[in-house]
């Protein structure tokens, strides 16, 4: 479960990326974070993955308050969060197998177990048989699937994806989302940041709209005491009807 309570993130240059975000994502839920570029979607993902810490407020992931986590505990924490990126972040000088195996290797998983789980993950994303190829020998869609296989190979309870379909055509984007949905079915909590609202609508899952560092849509699943500064958010309300201003919906 992911909980943000009045989370504020201000970067050293003074820019306030999040201005008191409160949201909750239940265990096994899949939600979409939507909004314009620079709205704060990626910052929310960074806070979930502990790539950043909140300036104020609370971010709790799987019951752990990330602000209180000691630096030496961060690597173990990150092993519990699978990450998928628009630019894949694959190691181009290593074969597909090694890329997918990386989260297991850093977790000191036994070699036999690594072999079994990497093949299973590659099978899930339809890339079994290509484990010896280098990422650059694959198509963009295949590279993205390698990134997804790497994110799920250690079976993390949480999966976050930052614009995972940004470089993909429609069919491949749908394929990737179907993969995510399959992972949700086995209990993985999934947060996908995207500006592809057509895709969001197609899957009919909860959507959290972020604008200028604030949640303006997508109610939390359970009531939370919200600060007055969180404008436009009402607990228990459904999506706003006047969403013509949303990116991609004009």
């Amino acid at each position, binding site marked *: 479960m992911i909980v943000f309570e009045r989370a504020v993130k201000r970067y050293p240059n003074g820019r306030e990326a999040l201005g008191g975000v409160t949201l909750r994502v239940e265990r096994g839920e899949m939600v979409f974070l939507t909004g314009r570029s620079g709205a704060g979607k*990626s910052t929310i*993902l*960074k806070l979930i*993955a502990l*790539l950043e810490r909140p300036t104020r407020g609370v971010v709790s992931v799987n019951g752990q308050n990330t602000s209180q986590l000691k630096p*030496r505990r961060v*690597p*173990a*924490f*990150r*092993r*519990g969060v699978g*990450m998928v*990126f628009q630019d894949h*972040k*694959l*190691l181009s000088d290593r074969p597909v197998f090694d890329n997918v195996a*990386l*989260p297991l*290797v*850093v*977790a*000191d*998983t*036994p*070699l036999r177990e690594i072999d079994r789980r990497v093949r299973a993950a590659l099978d899930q994303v339809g890339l079994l048989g290509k484990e010896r190829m280098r990422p650059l020998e694959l198509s963009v869609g295949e590279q993205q699937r390698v990134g997804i296989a*790497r994110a799920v190979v250690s079976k993390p309870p949480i999966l976050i994806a*930052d614009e995972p379909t940004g470089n993909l055509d429609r069919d491949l984007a749908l394929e990737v989302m179907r993969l995510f949905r399959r992972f949700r079915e086995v209990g993985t909590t999934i947060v996908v940041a995207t500006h592809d609202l057509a895709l969001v609508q197609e899957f009919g899952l909860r959507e959290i709209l972020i604008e200028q560092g604030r949640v303006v849509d997508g109610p939390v699943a359970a009531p939370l005491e919200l600060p007055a500064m969180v404008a436009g958010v009402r607990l228990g309300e459904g999506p706003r009807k006047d969403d013509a201003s949303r990116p991609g919906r004009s």
Partner: protein
Amino acid sequence: MSLGSWGVRHAQACVGALGRLAREPVGSLLTILVIALALALPVGLNLLVENARAATGDLAGSIELSVYFKTDVPLAKAQQLAQAAGERPEIASVKLIPADKGLEEFRAYSGFGAALAALDVNPLPHVLELRPRPQASTTAALGPLKAWLVSWPEVDVVQIDSQWVQRLEAILATLRRLLEIAAVLLGLGVVAVIGNTIRLEIAGRRGEIEVIRLVGGSNAFVRRPFLYAGVLYGLLGAILAAGIVALAVALLAVPIGSLAGLYGSRFALQGLAPSEFGALAAAGIVLGWLGAWAAAARQLRAVEPRP
């Protein structure tokens, strides 16, 4: 994690580091050569000092103490004291030269035979010549022995014939101190060279490190291949340094042997002993590890994942 997995992980990191060195043969070789030269210099100097010590012979065995008794001390008393001195554990040999024998020798070799014949009494005292054991021949050890001898009321003067040995010891001690300073400075140089090489390697693999951090790689995991790289640089540098020293010894052996032969000596230049090679390799490993650790600790802090 089982011990087997742990070993496999370390073996992988070590082989990976070796592979990266092999992929950049020219750059790696130049770095290793610089390290080797920095290590070879103090090792070669040390070898030079040790060989100089050996070439000048067993200096400690040539130190003597001459104990001059007062002229009125009877021979029996001198013999008794010589026996007491000989029983001390630090004394290797004792030789008593009675006054009569001393006069006889003096008369024979000094050229003052006629003048001495005119004397009514023998002006020479009994003399005791003591040769201490090698381990008791240092300046520090000879002090208490001299004090013990001087404390006898029958003794007039105790003379230690060690001035030239002390001078040579002082020269060798100065050389040794210079050697230590050079070793420390060059060791720091090795640490700096390896540290800089690892720093550049970290900068070149920044993207990979970021990805490893993103998937939960610990600091120890990220650091491991760089530490192995540092250790390999140090070890290979030490091996090459031993080779350079061995080559220098081989090139100098013949002319130095000829030089020693002209002085009637059978001295032969000695190379590195296996234990010295082991110490050199260990020093290379430690310096490599230190350099890599210093660079990794500083550089890796700056590499944070950027999603």
